[in-house]
Each structure stands twice: as structure tokens, then as C-alpha cells.
């Protein structure tokens, strides 16, 4: 993605009035602000969300959740809390990885083609860096990880019926997670950046 982004920005910056280092800057900011937080979380909503919903849903229809309840456990917190904590740890790491790989991708383009020089690209990465953007990104990821895991777990937990309903819960989990993530993206951006 970083490579494609860099290429496209470079190709479209045709005016000689625009400094070339803005290419590096735009790669950096796109990744930190949106791609590594929102886009990565949307992808994770599809992967992790459906996974959690079908796992918890299967536990529901095979009475494993009832078995937990009968032992006197609080099945909801026993099953769902660890998943939220795990997401709060892993999502930011994945997002960081995505930023690094994305910026590296742009760097490879700078290195291997002549749309932008390595110097300009690196200069752009340093230019007008706003540290708060990183904080903003981390805050968003934390919100999104809680949203995705709790919505998916909720959908799974309240599955009733059979295997067909587990499939439906899993689809609903992904759809609702994505919608709520996009909505919160707007709200958080409005609150934090303006």
C-alpha cells in the first residue's frame, strides 16, 4: 500500500510548484492518520470479528456457555473480557507494523524508481511532523479494538438456534463492527483534530 500510495501521489504531483518532499509527508500522514488505524481495523473487523462471533456463537449453541454458567461462572466476562484485552494489545502492534511496512514500501519506490528521490522522501517523512497524530491514531485504535471485539462477542453470545444462526451472527458482527468503526472514526476525528 505504501508503495502504491507513493507512486500515485508522485505521479499526480505534476506541478513544479509543489515541493517533491510532500510525497514523503503524505505517505507518512496517510498511514498514521487513517490507513494504519481505520483501514487496518476494518480489515481486522472482517478477520477477528467473524472469528470471535462464530467461536462464541458455537459455544452458545453447543451449550458450552450454559455449562460455564452452571459452574457458577460469569460466562460473559469470562469469555469476552480476555478477548477485549487481547485486542487492545495486538491491534496497536499490528497497526504499528502496518505504518512501518507502508513507509518502507514508499521508500522502496523512492529507491527503485525516479518519481521521487530518496532524499526528498526522507526529508518529507521528517517535515512538519505532528506527534499528536500518533496519539490520535493510538486513541482511535484502542476505541476500534474495543468496538470490534465487544460487538462481535455480543453477536456470538446472543446466538440462538443452530449452525445457520452462527453464520448469520458472524456476518452481522462484521457488518455492525464496520459501520460503528466508521462512525466513531468521524466522531473521534471531529473531537480530537478540530
Amino acid at each position, binding site marked *: 500500500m505504501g508503495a502504491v500510495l507513493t507512486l500515485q501521489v508522485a505521479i499526480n504531483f505534476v506541478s513544479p510548484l509543489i515541493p517533491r518532499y510532500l510525497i514523503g509527508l503524505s505517505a507518512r500522514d496517510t498511514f498514521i492518520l487513517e490507513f494504519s488505524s481505520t483501514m487496518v481495523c476494518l480489515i481486522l473487523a472482517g478477520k477477528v470479528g467473524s472469528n470471535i462471533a462464530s467461536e462464541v456463537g*458455537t*459455544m452458545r449453541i*453447543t*451449550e*458450552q456457555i*450454559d*455449562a460455564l*454458567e*452452571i*459452574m*457458577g*461462572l*460469569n460466562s460473559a466476562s469470562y469469555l469476552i473480557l480476555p478477548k477485549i484485552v487481547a485486542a487492545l494489545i495486538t491491534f496497536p502492534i499490528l497497526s504499528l507494523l502496518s505504518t512501518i511496512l507502508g513507509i518502507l514500501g514508499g521508500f522502496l519506490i523512492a529507491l527503485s524508481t525516479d518519481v521521487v528521490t530518496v532524499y526528498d522522501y526522507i526529508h518529507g517523512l521528517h517535515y512538519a511532523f505532528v506527534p499528536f497524530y500518533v496519539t490520535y491514531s493510538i486513541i482511535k485504535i484502542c476505541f476500534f479494538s474495543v468496538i470490534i471485539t465487544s460487538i462481535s462477542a455480543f453477536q456470538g453470545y446472543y446466538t440462538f438456534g443452530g449452525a445457520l444462526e452462527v453464520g448469520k451472527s458472524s456476518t452481522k458482527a462484521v457488518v455492525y463492527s464496520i459501520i460503528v468503526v466508521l462512525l466513531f472514526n468521524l466522531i473521534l476525528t471531529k473531537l480530537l483534530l478540530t
Partner: protein
Amino acid sequence: MIEVKNIDKYFGTNHVLKNLSASFQASKINMIIGKSGSGKTVLLKSIIGLHIPEKGEIFFDNREFISAKLNFKREIRKEIGMVFQGGALFTSLSVEENVMFPLNMFSNMSKAEKQNRVDFCLERVNIKDANKLFPSELSGGMQKRVAIARAIALNPKYLFCDEPNSGLDPQTAILIDQLIKEITTEYGITTIINTHDMNSVMEIGDNINFIFEGENIWQGNRVEIFNSDCKELNDFVFASELYKKIKHNI
């Protein structure tokens, strides 16, 4: 002792349990028998609170359960062992871990003591060389037996079994019946078994409740069951030629 008083349970407009009362005694095998769909599972799940009846009271040794606070319910539930109709083993845990699970949650035994307890329980249900297998790798009957091992791991005061020996061969079924009978009398457990298997009723049933369309219409022991004049019960018990012959020979 568990007492159920006048409970009603609806699913939408489907009136499943109708003003049902029953009492289940300690150290005895209490049985709930009845046709498929008569409401046995719903009754069992209502007693342990997985379904909430619309009306009625349930007492666990004089402790009212339905209106109790959630924390109190959890306390009572720690004294309950349950074998679900489908086993309900935790699919992500091995056989050993399944039986170990309640011990990990609620006992303060050492690791070695837990391991001993697990081995003991698995041995009692005749599971050998399967400790490390996962539920998906077991036969249906083995899953049932592991479920029983898990239910008795914590020495429960109340044991609920939803058709513990359906899907088992006659030999293993009798073994399971004997096992439940033994632990019931040995530890003074109040055991409630759902079944439609007349063999196990005859084998171990001390106190039998016959549920017909959500009503408890007959109660008695395995001797009285042959001499009752309740028509629905007779239709149920003497559905097979074998039991008709047995009746004639008594």
C-alpha cells in the same frame, strides 16, 4: 433435597411446563421420564436457572432459587454438576483440561492433587488413554462419559443428568447408571436424571416422575410403575412388547 413448586414456563405462546410440582430427594436417584418433547430438558434447565419460569418456586435444601440474587445463584451453582444432553464439553480444551476446568476455577488444590482428582474421575467413567485428546476426537459415548467426569470433579451436592446414557451401548449404559448410583449414595448427592430409557429406570430409579405434556402426572418408584393405573404412563412404559411380557409375568 430439591423441591419444585407450581412452576409455569412459556416459550412465546407454547405453554411447556404447566403448574408443575415435584420433589427430589437426597441420596436417591430421582428420575424424570416422559416422551420426547414433553418438557424434560426444559424442566431440568428451569431448575438450574438456565430458563426462568414465569411462575413458581424452586428450593435447594430450603434455599429459594428463582427469586435469589445472581451472586447467591452462583453460590448454589457451585454445588451443582450438570451433564448436558449433548455433552457440552469445551471444544478448545483436551479431555484432561475439561475435567480439570472446574477444579482450576473453584478449588485450592495443588497441581498434583488436581491431577490425581482428574485421573480418579476419568478412571471412574472408564476413560483410558484419552487424556490428551480433544472432544472432537472422541466418540459420542466417550464425550458423555467425560462430561460426567467433569460434572463430578468437584463432588457436587446436586447432580443433573440430561439423558446420560442415550447413544451408549447397553453395557456402557449400565456402567454409567451404576456409576451414578454409586456416587449418589456414597456422597449423599441429590441426583436428577432425565431419561426415556426404561432399562435405566428399572435399573436405578428410586423416585420417578412422569411428565406428560408439561404436567407431572405420576410419581412413584420402580415397583409401583408396573401396577399404576395411569393410562398415559402405561402407554409410555409398555410401548415395547418386552415390557408387556414382563408385566404379565409379575
